């Protein structure tokens, strides 16, 4: 996030796209509700009529995968109606003319044909966004989990830049991060192209800096991202994997291929707190510690580093993960230092990472609300809002992008579009939440949301057990007839190991990030039997 979570309450307009915030980020949604109660405008762009859409001034219910059209049409309106911020563009950006040229053909009327969103609604959203000073964009995986995810992000960035919504409080460009420490994992260099602090592995001077720090020669070329690793594993080129704290056989797209790859591996290690689908393939299982059993830091969506503190001992012989990793490094022959505490690990990490160089455990003890990077030195107060004095690095280039359809579109054999996602009650592979009574009772198993019209056509009633099939796999789920989804679209959560949504999804990846296309793939649905105890609260109203 360029801005901070607590700035949301003071915003005057929120453009929420591809984020089911009330379910995936409930506490950020509370800030949005607070802003809404204060009178802030809310525009939600989402193929589903999610709860935020119910409370929005405007819901742009686009067809899945047509975001580039919607956002380019908004840019078209802003440019053709002269609503852009000329001074900001001149001072802080380059290549605006490329975008001006590119979006000429993306008229709202044409966009209506592709996206299904009325042209007038696109105009209204664009006008509100461009003419409100404190207007923020909030997005998450609905934007990025496409083969054109990077293009979607470029389109959003173009809107932010042409309206000068950068470096303004309660505005900005705000990806809401999914996991507790996904920001921190990237910051720490758990990525194939960067050392800690986004320092390129292909940069010779960076490489020599880390070779000196770690006392060992390092690889000079980019590694494989997760999507590529899964593909190379299936081809038999990646021969061993060490998986810590992730159930890839649930969470990766097209998991049949992942299972094939794991079976072909010569050696698989899992470091986990519970047995899961992936540990079935492990040669060695190392019992780790959960967050309550170890010290450390998490970095949240607004770049805030906060402490995690050990409250209880790990069960049995389980050990904090950081200690296990150090032991393996040493036993493998690398002289990993004998860290006595996570504080020592953090100090080394911070010393090599310019963005967090000024942060220490000592400072975190004294600032209970955490410190937000960049925080380059020990007297720096941290940075709640990025780019307050213009882009932090040079000027920001606009990116002209063309719409590309999703990799797999519906056809006669697989006529429906499946999008997958998360619910409030479970968390990812749900090994934690399904072990608690509340979430487990609220949602016992997998389901699909399907529009009444599609359901009628397919002879499906609310609560029926249905079979959902794609070119990659078939699973069962309970059908929930719901006015939230568009005709021709179904939606399914990814949480349930016994009926894995990711047996269906497409592993075609974004060309830059490798992120799989979880939000669009072609499926067919048929009723297999009526469930005897279907819940009575059917949402039978259709729109």
């Amino acid at each position: 996030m360029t801005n901070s979570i607590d700035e949301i309450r003071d915003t005057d307009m929120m453009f929420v796209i591809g984020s089911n915030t009330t379910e995936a980020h409930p506490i950020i949604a509370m800030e949005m509700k607070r802003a809404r109660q204060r009178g802030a405008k809310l525009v939600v762009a989402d193929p589903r009529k999610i709860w935020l859409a119910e409370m929005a001034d405007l819901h742009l219910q686009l067809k899945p995968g047509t975001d580039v059209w919607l956002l380019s049409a908004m840019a078209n309106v802003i440019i053709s109606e002269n609503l852009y911020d000329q001074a900001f563009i001149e001072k802080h950006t380059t290549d605006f003319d490329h975008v001006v040229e590119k979006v000429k053909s993306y008229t709202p009327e044409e966009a209506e044909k592709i996206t299904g969103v009325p042209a007038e609604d696109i105009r209204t959203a664009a006008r509100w966004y461009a003419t409100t000073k404190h207007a923020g964009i909030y997005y998450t995986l609905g934007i990025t989990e496409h083969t054109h995810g990077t293009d979607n992000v470029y389109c959003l960035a173009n809107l932010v830049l042409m309206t000068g919504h950068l470096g303004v409080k309660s505005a900005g460009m705000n990806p809401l991060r999914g996991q507790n420490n996904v920001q921190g994992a990237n910051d720490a260099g758990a990525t194939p192209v960067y050392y800690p602090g986004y320092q390129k592995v292909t940069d010779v001077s960076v490489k020599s800096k880390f070779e000196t720090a770690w006392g060992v020669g390092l690889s000079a070329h980019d590694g494989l991202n997760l999507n590529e690793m899964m593909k190379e594993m299936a081809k038999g080129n990646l021969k061993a994997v060490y998986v810590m704290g992730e159930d890839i056989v649930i969470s990766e797209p097209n998991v049949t291929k992942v299972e094939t790859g794991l079976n072909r591996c010569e050696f698989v290690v899992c470091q986990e707190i519970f047995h899961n689908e992936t540990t079935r393939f492990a040669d060695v299982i190392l019992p780790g510690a959960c967050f309550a059993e170890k010290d450390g830091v998490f970095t949240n969506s607004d770049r805030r580093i906060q402490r995690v503190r050990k409250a209880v001992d790990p069960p049995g012989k389980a050990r904090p993960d950081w200690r296990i990793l150090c032991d393996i490094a040493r036993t493998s022959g690398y002289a990993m230092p004998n860290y006595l505490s996570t504080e020592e690990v953090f100090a080394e990490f911070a010393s090599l990472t310019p963005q967090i160089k000024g942060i220490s455990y000592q400072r975190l003890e004294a600032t209970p609300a955490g410190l937000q990077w960049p925080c380059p030195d020990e007297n720096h107060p941290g940075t709640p809002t990025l780019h307050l004095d213009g882009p932090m690095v040079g000027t920001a280039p606009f990116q002209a992008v063309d719409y590309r359809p999703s990799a797999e579109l519906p056809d006669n054999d697989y006529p429906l579009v499946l999008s997958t996602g998360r619910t409030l009650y479970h968390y990812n592979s749900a090994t934690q939440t399904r072990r608690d009574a509340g979430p487990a009772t609220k949602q016992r198993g997998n389901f699909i949301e399907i529009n009444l019209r599609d359901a009628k056509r397919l002879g499906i009633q609310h609560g029926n057990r249905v079979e959902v099939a794609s070119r990659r796999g078939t699973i069962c789920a309970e059908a929930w007839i719901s006015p939230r989804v568009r005709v021709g679209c179904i939606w399914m959560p990814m949480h349930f190991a016994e009926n894995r949504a990711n047996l269906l999804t497409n592993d075609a990846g974004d060309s830059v990030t490798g992120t799989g296309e979880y939000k669009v793939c072609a499926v067919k649905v048929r009723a297999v039997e009526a469930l005897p105890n279907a819940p009575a609260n059917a949402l039978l109203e259709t729109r």
Partner: protein
Amino acid sequence: MNQSFQITLDGQTVTAHTGETVFDVAKREGVSIPSLCHDSRLEPAGACRVCLVEVAGQRRLQPGCAWVVTPDMQIETQTDRIQRHRTVLYNLYMADHEIDDAGLPVETGNENQLRKLCQSVPSMGLTPIQAPRSGRPLDDNPYIKFEPDLCILCARCTRYCDEVEAVNAITLANRGSETTIATAGQRSLMETTCELCGGCIDTCPTGALIEKKAPSNLVQLGEIESFRSTCNFCGVGCQLNLHVQNDRVVKVTSPPPGDTLNDGNLCIKGRFAYDFIHHQDRITEPLIRDKNGQLQPATWEQAIAATANGLNAVREKHGPDALGFISSSRCTGEENYLMQKLARAAFGTNNIHQCAAT
């Protein structure tokens, strides 16, 4: 227009700003005014009447939480009249409240702020009211219990449910002495719009809303150990206090509103989904798969050696880029740092990633 001006608070001249309440000014000046129904996250309700103050020129006492100050206003917070009012008020509350052997309002797992207030006034020995107020004894939700005899109807819970969580699952219902906190048709919370965030428990000042799975005597245990940490679910980064008894996490709460980014709020996962920590299914010892494909318990030395040897063997046979390291965005920053250092420094590959893209 935000203007500054002077008012008189307990005889002292102090600065105030347009739109501020007596509470806002008093808090800044370090003047303590008791209250039960006030929560900084909610609109002032003036419901509990505990915070009444004297305002010069006003015939009646006025609620400090809701009374907006104006220039030259004179406010007294600790007069005999206020003290007389509080004595009667607290005794009335006690007459309509479950009382323990000490003659004070009962305290459950949560602190009962009314109990503390009642200790400050003499008992008037009023006859108990025995209000016919109904709870929801059959509510089978796993987390939240409502005890009507401990409720003072300040409506913090229903206002929180409306103003902050915005689900409106609970509401004030009925009239007079039958007034209670209810759901539509007294249904179980599981059959309402309730999302089980537990904010009602958190905001309740008297402990009438009780966390079902936490020990019922947490307050009486006194200084139970608590550890400040960060939630391990989504990317918001809510701050938590993990309450520990006998080396088990028995309750999770948020630090008070105001100090942290979650402002006292938590969701169902952060507040309640902690059973996994001590679940019997946790993996408690290292395991190595034997020749027959069965997982067998091993010592740490064996498991670490097996891991190092397995990875080294593949590296020697196929080169470092035949190895893949999948770190975890669920683990700490230090662990992610060490995992990428393990991949790069110990095994010579940049094949290191995590679930950022899933």
